[in-house]
């Protein structure tokens, strides 16, 4: 799985990009849980969007059929991804674009940096793109003396405050408006010192700043929501209009796209453009949907480069169950409905992919190196409540993928952990009715019981339970004993 032989799918590199944090989920979540401001901001934001999403989804009578259609298109795509990518390359090339293949984050960054230099630019404007965050593009460009300006409002907030995004759609979901005002006053060039935290004033301040950037930048960088293999049409779906500026004003446009974003046909957009807006922003129709195929002489960028990024995706594709994670259209519905995400926030996941899908996708892309790998803890950052599956517009069975990644996490143990040993012992007792009965009899939790008969404290690891919850003492008679006593032997 972690083989680096040429031609074998490999995992994303460890030293470039942001797919892995530095601490395990419970450790990071500990801090987030204590951050009262974060808890209120996130609780309010996710609750609002959950309610709105539920309302607009309920309006669509064939929503379930649409979900199934989305799932089917994605499954078909993954089943023949190499073929579709070649078809896409051909179509893009035929329409005057240039296609580049990047095996990993490092290659993608190098390609983009050299394209920017070739265009003679040291400044670029960016449309929000998670793929470029994944590979740490802004940081890589900065090392080459190239300044990247994020033009999505929330992304700009994150960039100005040297922060990390915590949500797919609303990267600054963890910030409220007075925090945003402070960030702008501190870091936005030429800002009005009397700026208030009124949303409109904040937006206008960002707009004034961004207008200058749009008009001067010669290179735009974007991600892609979809790419139709048959026509070579790339699509970016956004709601502020900044994307349209970045995609049309510069001379050169560079799009970095994860290979899984390809769809077979232009007509497949019909399905996704219904599923995506309602699931993500709870809008009936997406405000700004840009589509372009190659270059059009005299209209828009005259040079178009498409960078196809693997960075561990072939490795995910090789796993027949796990590849469903590549179906994700980054709508963020699973984040908004996740009770764990709502409380721990996006940063606790360490990776640019937070929430339920991130808890699966991040370890899939990076591989799990052992029990101390922070990404080994991600698949456990879920109560498996299943709300994510119900919300997912392309029906990704995230709970099942979480269980599969838990198995991958355990498979990475080179020597058995204490938990491995305990689980093996229990499993052995559970296939032997006699040993199981014996084990039941010696449960022996009773000695920790207080006078109330409730257990208020247990030694580690039971203390993890009794830190907040009492534990009942075992009953004097198990069900099995009761059955035998009241019904006699034999059933």
């Amino acid at each position, binding site marked *: 799985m972690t083989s680096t032989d040429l031609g074998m799918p490999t995992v994303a590199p460890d030293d470039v990009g942001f797919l892995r944090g530095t601490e395990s989920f*419970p450790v990071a*979540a*500990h801090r987030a*849980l204590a951050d009262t401001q974060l808890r209120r901001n996130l609780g309010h934001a996710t609750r609002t969007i959950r309610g709105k999403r539920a309302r607009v989804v309920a309006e669509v009578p064939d929503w379930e059929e649409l979900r199934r259609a989305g799932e089917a298109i994605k499954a078909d795509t993954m089943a023949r991804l190499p073929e579709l990518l070649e078809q896409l390359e051909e179509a893009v090339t035929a329409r005057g674009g240039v296609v580049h293949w990047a095996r990993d984050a490092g290659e993608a960054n190098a390609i983009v940096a050299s394209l920017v230099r070739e265009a003679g630019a040291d400044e670029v404007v960016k449309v929000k793109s998670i793929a470029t965050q994944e590979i740490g593009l802004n940081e890589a460009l900065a090392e080459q003396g190239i300044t990247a300006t994020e033009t999505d409002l929330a992304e700009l907030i994150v960039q100005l405050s040297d922060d990390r995004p915590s949500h797919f759609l609303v990267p600054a979901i963890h910030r409220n408006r007075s925090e945003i005002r402070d960030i702008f006053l501190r870091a936005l060039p030429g800002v009005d010192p009397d700026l208030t935290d009124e949303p409109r004033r904040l937006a206008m301040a960002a707009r004034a700043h961004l207008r200058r950037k749009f008009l001067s930048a010669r290179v735009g960088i974007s991600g892609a929501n979809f790419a139709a293999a048959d026509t070579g049409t790339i699509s970016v779906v956004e709601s502020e209009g900044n994307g349209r500026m970045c995609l049309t004003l510069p001379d050169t446009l560079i799009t970095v796209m994860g290979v899984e974003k390809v769809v077979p046909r232009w007509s497949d957009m019909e399905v996704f453009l219904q599923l995506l807006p309602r699931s993500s922003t709870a809008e009936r129709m997406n405000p700004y949907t840009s589509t372009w195929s190659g270059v059009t002489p005299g209209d828009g960028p005259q040079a178009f480069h498409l960078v196809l990024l693997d960075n561990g995706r072939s490795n995910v594709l090789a796993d027949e169950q796990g590849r469903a994670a590549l179906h994700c259209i980054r709508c963020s519905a699973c984040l908004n409905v996740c*009770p*764990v995400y709502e*409380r721990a926030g996006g940063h606790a996941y360490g990776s640019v992919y937070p929430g339920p899908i991130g808890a699966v996708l991040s370890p899939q892309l990076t591989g799990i190196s052992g029990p101390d790998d922070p990404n080994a803890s991600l*698949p*456990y*950052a*879920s*109560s*498996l*409540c*299943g*709300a994510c*599956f119900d919300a997912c517009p392309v029906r990704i069975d995230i709970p*099942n993928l979480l*269980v*599969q*990644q*838990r*198995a991958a*996490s355990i498979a990475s143990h080179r020597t058995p952990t204490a*938990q*491995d040993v305990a*689980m093996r012992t*229990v499993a052995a007792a*559970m*296939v*032997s*009715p006699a040993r*199981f009965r014996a084990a*039941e009899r010696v*449960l022996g939790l009773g000695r920790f*019981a207080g006078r*109330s*008969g*409730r257990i*208020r404290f247990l030694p580690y*690891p039971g203390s*993890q*339970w009794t*830190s*907040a*919850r*009492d*534990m*009942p*003492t*075992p*009953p*004097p*008679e*198990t*069900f*099995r004993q*009761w*059955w035998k006593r009241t019904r006699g032997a034999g*059933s």
Partner: protein
Amino acid sequence: MRIAVIATCLGDAMFPQAVKATVEILERLGHEVVFPEDQTCCGQMHVNTGYLDMALPLVRHHVEVFADAADVSVAPSGSCVGCVRHQHAMVARRGGDEGLARAAEELAGRTYELSELLVDVLGVTDVGAYYPHRVTYHPTCHSLRMLRVGDKPLRLLREVRGLQLTELADAEVCCGFGGTFAVKNAEVSTAMLADKMANVLTSGAEVCTAGDSSCLMHIGGGLSRLRSGVRTVHLAEILASSDTERSGAGPSGTEQGTPARDIVFDTAEVGESKGVHP
């Protein structure tokens, strides 16, 4: 109908009152209940913690024990039935045992959570219960989203005489139990529990019920720690309660967070709320 009861490992060892109540309801409805004594555990804890290989023999054991035990099987647990129905075949296939996967699927097709068995298979909603308390119902995640039991538990509860159902806000949000999640991510689990408890308390209920002893152990453990004065009672126990004299068949609701002393009392004496707390 001949019905095999799956006690579940937790029900057998820690919460026998819920399993006894299940037996009692079904017998009261005139069915023959059997308890295959070699049963142990469905393997859910292993599966959901990621020990899929270790779970394979547990799946095989479960299938061997229950395949020919009765017409149908029932468990007073949405999550154990969820495991049987949605995970056993996956574990078998992953272990390369297609024959076992098929047998598991066949068995899963006639394995039911209690409210499903009562409403869908046996076609009853009024099981003749009497439970004069204010009750709120928490739909556990696996009942709700894995099994899709929908409003079946509520339909059963609405027929219980004397019972006053109060609405639970954000009912469909997870309580934070999640098996090993409650221990591995104890703090997030507790944060989720805090919100669930707040909603239970504002519901004005005296009893919070659900179809899973595990979630009730979690919610009840929190309510008990806070001396909240609200207890958790398994759905089966409420449905088994009656105002007619019964003998030794278990109380009409033992707080999940109290010592399960085998409190045997005349339910007629319980009246509004006396006598339940030891």
